[in-house]
């Protein structure tokens, strides 16, 4: 379903203006007290939520969206100060509610779906007991009937074999099943309002699709949903109304169509433009990025590929003696100046493939060639000569930096010793690297801990560029970043490639990022490369059933299709 289609849904909210709103919020403010000083993190949020309606609150980290959601269910925390001109649940003024009163509202009137099912569920308790907990607390039915209700709930959220699952502990369930168990416990008492705080973050795309379908079904049953998300494509599928938050304030508010198709605030426009996908190929994603340089002339035909892998096999043995095939007969070719995207869900073996390519893991079979030379079979001592030709950028840059070192030390350490013999030449090269990745000179004395996520990733890229590599392996390098920051980093990567002819092996679970960036795409599942081709092949004419399933699961987001 495209965004345009998704907006064709009958707008329940506007169709039933007479229905009393389930939730009315006017000028909600939330702040925290620290040393007696109040610091507001949410200022002036107002909206009403009608039956069958979904209000989405969109924003990046620190925008105040989660605090807003928690304030609505009385969970903002002990040190929080929440007030509002109007805050009504089912017409009841809940502003002065004490904790005990909130407990009666939560679960019965408002269900709250938390973000991370693994930490939100008690690891020692069967999920059935967890779901029965709100029933017990609110004295729902007779104790004997609750077990049947749990099964009914699990069935409703699409958990297969609910009788078995109810007896299992969270650790025995997959991420998707855990998230659905959490939804089941939130809707156990059939609340009319459900607040979902990033319900699909950290889920694989196929699981995300299932969770979104469940939320959609709830809407159709007349439930009202408040959806908190950083992901516009998720929001586009469900929301009737959208509030865009930034720095604690609502910068734009309107119907989903208004906000997504004709955003008025520059921040909303930037947010929408920053979502990568097939339609964004070859153009910058961020308004703050300079125009992309002309493409680097590709190497003449017949030149050896920069990186070539054939028949890679990697087994891991578990503590119980069992072996798992993490990578099973994977082959690929990375041509100079191009990007090969490896896409797959968690456990698909894509990160292991990256480590094999980097020579950080020994192969059980197969061969990797770097710039036409033997690479994987070399002993580490001989491999070192070639190491500067291939470098890496990781998902979590902070842990990849020595915590004792500032940016200058980190970059100095990455310079090849033979090439930069004098202090002046090293200094010049470091300034040049900073310039390449768009960082000011001031960061040199700073420690990575004190840098923002985007700045850290820029430092990581500068370090990867330091030895003048031919290939950079990027393992989920933009996955932990906010979408506008991700846009800047992706623009930087494309610009660097175009100006210097770098090749990227780009590993990601995000199909949008992969299709924005890649010249060739490799789809992995359970250690096997199921399909390989151009982005056109993969995204328009997928052959393998798994690829088709993956593509179908993307909540498609293409703002240009709205304006057509």
């Amino acid at each position, binding site marked *: 379903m495209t965004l345009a289609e998704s907006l064709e849904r009958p707008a329940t909210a506007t169709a039933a203006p007479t229905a009393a709103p389930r939730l009315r919020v006017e000028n909600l403010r939330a702040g925290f007290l620290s040393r007696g000083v109040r610091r507001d993190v949410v200022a002036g949020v107002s909206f009403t939520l009608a039956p069958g309606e979904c209000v989405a609150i969109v924003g990046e980290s620190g925008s105040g969206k989660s605090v807003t959601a928690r304030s609505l269910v009385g969970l903002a925390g002990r040190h929080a100060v929440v007030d509002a001109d109007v805050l009504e649940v089912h017409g009841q003024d809940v502003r002065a509610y004490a904790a005990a009163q909130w407990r009666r509202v939560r679960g019965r009137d408002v269900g709250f779906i938390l973000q991370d099912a693994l930490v939100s569920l008690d690891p020692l308790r069967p999920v059935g007991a967890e779901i029965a907990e709100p029933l017990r607390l609110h004295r729902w039915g007779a104790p004997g009937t609750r077990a049947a209700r749990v099964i009914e709930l699990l069935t409703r959220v699409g958990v297969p074999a609910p009788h078995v699952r109810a007896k299992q502990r969270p650790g025995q369930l997959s991420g998707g099943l855990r998230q659905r168990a959490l939804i089941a416990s939130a809707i156990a008492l059939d609340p009319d309002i459900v607040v979902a705080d990033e319900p699909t973050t950290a889920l694989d795309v196929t699981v995300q699709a299932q969770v979104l379908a469940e939320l959609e079904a709830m809407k159709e049953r007349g439930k009202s949903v408040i959806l908190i998300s950083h992901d516009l494509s998720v929001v586009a599928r469900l929301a009737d109304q959208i509030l865009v938050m930034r720095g604690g304030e609502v910068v734009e508010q309107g119907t989903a169509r208004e906000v997504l198709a004709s955003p008025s605030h520059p921040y909303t426009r930037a947010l929408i433009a920053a979502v990568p996908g097939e339609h964004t190929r070859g153009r910058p994603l961020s308004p703050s990025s300079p125009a992309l340089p002309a493409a680097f002339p590709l190497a003449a035909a017949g030149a050896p590929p920069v990186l070539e892998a054939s028949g890679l096999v990697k087994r891991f043995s578990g503590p119980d003696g069992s072996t798992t095939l993490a990578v099973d007969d994977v082959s690929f070719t990375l041509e100079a100046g191009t990007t090969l995207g490896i896409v797959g869900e968690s456990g698909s073996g894509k990160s292991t493939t990256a480590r094999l390519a980097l020579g950080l893991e020994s192969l059980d079979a197969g061969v990797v060639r770097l710039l036409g030379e033997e690479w994987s079979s070399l002993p580490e001592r001989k491999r070192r000569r070639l190491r500067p030709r291939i470098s890496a950028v990781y998902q979590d840059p902070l842990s990849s930096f020595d915590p004792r070192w500032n940016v200058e030390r980190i970059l100095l350490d990455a310079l090849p010793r033979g090439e930069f013999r004098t202090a002046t030449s090293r200094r010049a090269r470091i300034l040049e690297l900073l310039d390449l990745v768009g960082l000011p000179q001031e960061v040199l004395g700073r*420690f990575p*801990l004190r840098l923002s996520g985007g700045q850290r990733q820029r430092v990581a890229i500068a370090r990867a560029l330091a030895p003048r590599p031919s290939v950079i392996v990027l393992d989920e390098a933009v996955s932990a970043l906010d979408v506008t920051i991700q846009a800047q980093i992706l623009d930087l990567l494309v610009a660097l490639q175009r100006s210097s002819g770098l090749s990227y092996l780009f590993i990601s679970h995000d199909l949008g990022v992969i299709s924005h960036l890649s010249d060739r795409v490799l789809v992995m599942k359970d250690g096997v490369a199921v399909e390989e081709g151009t982005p056109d092949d993969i995204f328009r004419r997928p052959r393998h059933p798994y690829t088709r399933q993956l593509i179908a699961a993307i909540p498609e987001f293409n703002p240009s299709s709205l304006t057509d």
Partner: protein
Amino acid sequence: MTALRPTSPATPLAVPLAQRPWGLYLALAFVAVLAVAAIAPGLLATADPYALNYGASLQAPSWAHWFGTDESGRDLYSRVVHGTGTSLLIGLGAAGVGIALALVLGGIAALAPRWIAVPVDRFLEVLFAFPALLLALLLIAITGPSAGTAIFAVGLGTAPGYARMVRGQILAAKGSAYVEAATALGHSRGRIVRAHILPNALRPLVAVFALSVGQSIVWASSLSFLGLGVAPPSPEWGAMLDAGRAYVTVAGWLILVPGFVIVAVALAATTLGRHLQAHLEKEEQR
């Protein structure tokens, strides 16, 4: 010691009196007195610690003898002060030996090739199974008691515990993402060990080592108390404690004073170690 300055650098006087780290000031002052007593005991106590005066034996604390006198009429205050050097030397020496052994053994267990690392690690586990004092007694049983033996015995006794800590820290640093990043940059193993693994592994242990000084002084005194350390008439605190044991009912100060001093030294060392630890952790979170 400048690194230990606990107050905020900008406005040290702005910290309210009650919130100042008085324990730290007290510990620093006590360590300063100990240093003087160890280097120049004559400055603090003019009386001869060996001078016998049977006419004045077992006298209670008075203006003439601040801490009283022992069974031979020796001035206890003077003996405590003059014993500082030996007692601290044994404590510090034992801590040094323990740490040095721990670094070598722990380092081998974590960094050496498997064929040597695994046996060393197993050996450490066996040693760790012995209580520290038992291990120390074992060594003394073989070599006979003396100050030097006490140092090595206490060092050997405490080393296994520290060695396992060293090993754990090194292994954690070895498996870190920054070490992998350095490997990917093509740095040699020696360079990675020197630049990343050792500094990051040992940094959190600095405070542990400071704490171990207090611990070692207590162990060393324990050995002397058992008559297995410094032999009388040398004024060593543990030995004094042992000698005073016989008179505990008539002259309690003979064991109270050296006992109190031992406790105070251990407390001071621990306080300094804790502050050092907090300071390093704060540094880490810059």
